Structure formats: C-alpha cells, structure tokens
C-alpha cells in the first residue's frame, strides 16, 4: 500500500502555514504526527492533493500552565505528555489515559492536536478532554477561537473546525479540590483501539463521604465521546459507597446507545460500559480521598 500522489509543503512558521491553508483549504490536509493520516493515505481512504507538514513548527509544541488550565500545544507528542511532570501533577486523568494510546513507536510521533483534530470516536484524548470539560483552540487567518470540547466533537471523524482552521492548543482545566480521576478501558490488546473506555471525575464534599459532582465520559460507544448525563446528575449528593457505583452502572447502561461492529456487539459494549463506570467511579473516589491524605 502506497499513498497516492500529492504535493508536499513544509511551512516555516504558523503564520505561513495558516496563509497556505487559507488558500488551499479545499484540497489540503495538515500533517501532524501522521499516525492516522498516513495509514489513510496508504489505504487511499484520503486523497488530499496537498499535505502541509506541521512538524517543523516548533512554536506549536510545548506544555505550560495557564490560569486554571494546563495547556498542551497541538504538535506536542504523546510521548512528551507521557513523560511530563506537569501533566502528572495537574492532569492525572490525561497522564493515565495517554499510556493507552497506541504503542510506544506510535506515541513517539503521534500528537495531541492531531489526535483531537482526527476525532476518532474510540481515541483516548477526545474522551479525556470531554471528561475534563476542556477546550480546543482553533486558529486561522481570520483569528482565534476557543471551542468547548463538547461542541468541538461533532460526530465520527467530524469536528467543529473549519477547513482553514488549525487546532493550535488544547486546554485541560485544573480539577477542583477533593477530586479524583480514573481512566479505564477494555481493548483486545493493550494499545489497540478501545472497545469501550471511560474517564471518571469524582469530587467529594468536605466530609469525604458525599459526592458533590461526578463526570463520566465514554469512548467507543458513539460517534464522539459520550457523557453519561443522567448518571452524573443521579450521583450528585449520593454517599461514597459500592451501591452508589452499582446504581450508576445501571443508569449508564440505560442511557448510552452503542453500536455493534465486528469487534464487539452493542450489548457487550453496553454491559462493559456499566462495569467500567462502576470501577472507575470507585477508583476516582478513592483517589480523591488519598489526595486529601497526602
């Protein structure tokens, strides 16, 4: 399998990349880490006539703290995120989930912006971003805008980005006090796309026995990351207890609507989503308590 013919251009600055993209948006495809795009070219599922290679744009890579959020620039590699002490401290859910992204030689090339822009419904990063109520920064020659993750992911491989816009930053908000997180997933083999994955965020009251807020974000059960809103609102005010997590699992199974495919049936995904929710909520609550003890 070889890619079809295309023209290749490697801009020297973001400004130049945006100018080229503005002129060629209908035929061009930005090339980030290439871990999804190159297979799509090899299999001829994508046939852009121009590739704009962003790999030389060092201004698009880096991780930093901003007011209320950890900011990961678009061309930051998964491997860099995996090794980052800032991410481990301020976005433990991201640190936990990133280890599930592909394999080592995929994570050395794959980028955060590329993964978000590609919007595979079974990919971890979009699920984390939706769990944390993060935002995506889009930049074009027309300007810059911040889009909440919930609005950014529209459907299977479809986002709110316009053809002339690039994902330039992804922002993961800090967690509130007394909050724990957990990422769990089921895949055929470690590193394969998840059949079902979940990110849980649990915040506790000052007594550490009552849930003040809970979030559940699933991957692999729809065209985009899916929040279990009914389970989330039912969890508010509930005690930290095994029965609470079991009840949440039942609510999750009732409200999600996964599709079946050759990898797993809809029934299996629905069942596993409940199991994972139960475990992830318990683990996140336990971590919220541990965090307070440290």
């Amino acid at each position, binding site marked *: *399998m*070889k*890619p*079809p*013919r*295309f*023209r*290749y*251009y*490697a801009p020297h600055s973001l400004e130049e990349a945006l100018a*080229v993209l503005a*002129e*060629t948006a209908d035929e061009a495809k930005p090339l980030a880490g*290439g*871990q999804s795009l*190159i*297979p799509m*070219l*090899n*299999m001829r599922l994508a046939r852009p006539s*121009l*590739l*704009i*290679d962003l*790999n030389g744009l060092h201004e698009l890579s880096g991780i930093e703290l901003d007011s209320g959020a950890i900011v990961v620039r678009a061309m930051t590699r998964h*491997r860099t995120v995996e090794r980052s002490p800032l991410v481990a401290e301020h976005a433990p859910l991201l640190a936990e989930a990133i280890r599930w992204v*592909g*394999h*080592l*030689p*995929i994570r*050395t*090339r794959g980028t955060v912006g590329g993964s978000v822009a590609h919007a595979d419904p079974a990919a971890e990063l979009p699920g984390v971003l939706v769990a944390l109520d993060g935002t995506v920064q889009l930049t074009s020659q027309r300007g810059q805008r911040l889009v909440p993750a919930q609005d950014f992911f529209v459907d299977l491989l479809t986002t709110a980005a316009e053809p002339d816009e690039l994902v330039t930053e992804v922002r993961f908000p800090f967690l509130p006090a007394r909050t724990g997180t957990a990422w769990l997933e089921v895949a055929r*083999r*470690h*590193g394969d796309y998840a059949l079902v994955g979940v990110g849980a965020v649990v915040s506790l009251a000052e007594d550490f026995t009552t849930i003040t807020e809970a979030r559940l974000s699933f991957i692999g059960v729809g065209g985009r990351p899916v929040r279990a809103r009914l389970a989330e609102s039912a969890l508010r005010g509930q005690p930290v207890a095994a029965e609470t997590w079991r009840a949440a699992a039942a609510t999750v199974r009732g409200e999600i609507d996964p599709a079946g495919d050759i990898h797993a049936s809809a029934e299996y995904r629905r069942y596993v989503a409940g199991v994972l929710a139960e475990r992830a909520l318990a683990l996140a609550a336990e971590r919220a308590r541990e965090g307070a003890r440290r």
Partner: protein
Amino acid sequence: MTAVGTEHRVIRVVVNGVPYEREVEARLLLSDFLRHELGLTGTHVGCEHGVCGACTVLFDGEPVRSCLLLAVQADGHVIETVEGLAPSEAELHPLQRAFWEKHGLQCGYCTSGMLMVLKAFLAEHPNPTEEEIREAISGNLCRCTGYQNIVEAALYAAQLMRQS
C-alpha cells in the same frame, strides 16, 4: 498563482552515521526509501499501515514506524536501522547476540523491528521486568515464536548490556 508545494524534493538524511542526499517523490514512505533507494533491506515491511511494527527504526533516537513517515519528513534527521546495530562485521550488538543465543527468532521477519524498539527501550530501562518488556514490544507482531524466547532474549540482552 502557482500551486503550493512540490511532488518531489531533495532531502539530506544521516542513516547509520552515513550522510545521504537524494531527490525523492513526496509520497515515498521512509520504509521504501530505506529499502529501495538506500538498499537497506534489513528494515522489513509487513502491513504498511502501522500495525505490525516490522518496519520500526530509530528517528533521532526514538522508535518510529517507518511506514508511517514520509521520506521527505526525514530531511535533516538522523535514522538508525538494524544494519547500524552491530559495532563491526565481526561483532554482534548485545541484543543480536542475545536473540541468537536464546533463539529469539524463527522466520526472522519481525526481528529487525523487535531489535530496534528494544534498543530504544533498554537505553531507558536498563533493568526491565518481563512485564515491561512485554509492553515495550506490544506494538510488534511475531507470528512464529509466541514471544517467549523474544522476552527471554530481551532480558538476557539487558543483562549483557549492564555487564559491559
């Protein structure tokens, strides 16, 4: 306006310490560049969509799938392939020696990818557990061995490298 970008490009790369300058088609994969342009056929091509890991090489020291990179993207970068592992014609790299002694291969198709990913992994984890090795090679498929002897060879290689 003339079209942006080109279908061909001149690239300069250093492969196993040797500098090369070649004009290549933009769509040429790095794996095919190494094999067909440079004659370095030790890098194997299995699935060509990033699943099997046979084509793994080191790109500026990091393991990558050479079938998921374009040759033009290697411009200005340093590549290591399996041909660059052994220090000389007469001497094997400890990884190669370990694979030989522990029978870490049968047909050999996956071997160069295994060696390259393990080279990068062992540099960071000189004293790995069996489980860590299994995770490190989880992106490399072997259809012969059942991985048992590959894992043993990797553990043995780590030991050899710690001793030297």
